[in-house]
């Protein structure tokens, strides 16, 4: 009798892969807006996988930062630029064929190496709980320097984005 969480894993993994595929090669629509909406769904089902891995804080961050902030910026820019002309173009058959081939090759080699090297008994032993308190302690005690550098990086990105999109650079 399979447990409910096991079924949940298979459902969420399937949904993640399905939505991921519809993000990159949707047979019904070439519009980047559709791709962006499917990317949001991919990210949300991935947050479900994070919950199954007991990484509750990261699941929340994934939904808030990725599905919330990042994808809103994406949609905002796509709609700002009004890319009507792109939708009339068809997929490049050669590119899709060669891209599919290379993606299959990468997938095959990655899956083969995972199957070969990860012991099936890897479920044994104690497992880390994605305890938010422990994570915060780790973040603000042993990783405080990268954390502060990251805030500077965000500031640099913000200034850079404003500067790059300015109309006349001088």
């Amino acid at each position, binding site marked *: 009798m399979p447990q409910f969480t096991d079924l949940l*894993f298979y459902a969420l993994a399937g949904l993640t892969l399905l939505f991921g595929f519809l993000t990159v090669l949707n047979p019904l629509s070439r519009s*980047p807006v559709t791709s*962006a909406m499917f990317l949001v769904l991919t990210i949300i089902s*991935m947050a479900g*996988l994070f919950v199954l891995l007991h990484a509750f804080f990261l699941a929340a961050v994934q939904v808030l930062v*990725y599905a919330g902030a990042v994808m809103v910026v994406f949609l905002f820019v796509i709609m700002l630029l009004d890319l009507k002309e792109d939708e009339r173009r068809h997929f490049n058959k050669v590119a899709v064929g060669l891209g599919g081939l290379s993606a299959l090759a990468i997938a095959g080699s990655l899956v083969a190496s995972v199957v070969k090297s990860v012991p099936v008994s890897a*479920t044994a032993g104690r*497992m880390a709980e994605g305890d938010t308190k422990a994570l915060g302690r*780790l973040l603000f005690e042993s990783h405080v320097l990268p954390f502060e550098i990251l805030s500077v*990086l965000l500031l640099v990105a913000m200034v850079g984005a404003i500067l790059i999109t300015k109309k006349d650079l001088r």
Partner: protein
Amino acid sequence: MTPGLHHYLIVSALLFSLGLLGVVARRNLFVIFMGLELMLNAANLALVAFSRYHNNLNGQVMVFFIITVAAAEVAVGLALLVALYRKRQTAHVEDLTSLKL
């Protein structure tokens, strides 16, 4: 069958290849960018799975940093796309061949 570490790693590997497919096969710069995001997310999934099954929270801290850096990357990347669109009125890689001999 109870999902273990290798199940998560296989999902992550497949998601990574889907992102690669988007980067290689599509010609729209926005979709290429979304393919990059998919690849980053696949790496995140692998890190969280390793963190859980090796009982080490450092993996989750790394994912937290990756998400933040990805947000910064998206901001700058989209700014570049806006600047490009302003100059060339296109977001399609086949129209951007001025470096070609």
